[in-house]
């Protein structure tokens, strides 16, 4: 209980967004659901690891973006989601 009640408002918002994505993923076909879950989970964990916890402006931007994406995903006509990993392509260039 103690560790939970210490969560800040913005942390709660992030968790609520995550929960919203997982809930919406249930409505899609099983294999799409699995893909959505892994993409969303990877995205959240990646951001949790890499973003400074005090970078509120950026976190709030991501929250807004995530909420918009969630709204789109809730549309029954949208069956799935995919990601482009542009960073991977550019990495060799950055190293040089």
């Amino acid at each position: 209980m103690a560790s939970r009640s210490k969560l800040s408002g913005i942390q709660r918002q992030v968790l609520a967004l995550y929960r919203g994505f997982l809930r919406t993923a249930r409505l899609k076909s099983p294999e799409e659901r699995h893909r959505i879950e892994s993409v969303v989970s990877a995205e959240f964990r990646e951001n949790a690891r890499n973003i400074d916890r005090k970078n509120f402006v950026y976190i709030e931007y991501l929250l807004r973006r995530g909420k918009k994406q969630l709204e789109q995903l809730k549309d029954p006509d949208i069956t799935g989601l995919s990601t482009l990993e542009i960073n991977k392509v550019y990495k060799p260039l950055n190293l040089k």
Partner: protein
Amino acid sequence: MAAALSAVVSAKLGCPPAAALGSWKGSRISSRNLVSMKTMTARRGLVSLRSPRFRVCCAAKAETVGKVMQIVKQQLALGEEAKLAPESQFTELGADSLDTVEIVMALEEEFGITVEEDNAQSITTIQDAADLIDKLVAGGGGKPPAAA
């Protein structure tokens, strides 16, 4: 009703006009009113005993706890041999807050319940989860998730 009640109350306080009224109508009416007040308070006492708050503190069924443990193991990718206690905190088992959300979602699906946002925040141990699940299942909150 209110007038009759005030008559009874003032009769109890011993005001002369009300006392006269009581003697004039006989004690039957005032005693009936007194009885009806008594039943009202008695019923309120019963309702509060049955209110959901009292059910929260009941220990969850052993099979619920077992099922919860199974799902937690699955979600956190712990081996079958991992020893879990009902008091184990998810954070002690290596779960972060995102894992906890996943655990709660998996439990919702398994038991066909919907956990509200603020309840979901307060689940930190297997016992918490099992208690809440038993409460929701007993409260008729159980709906097949397919309906969602």
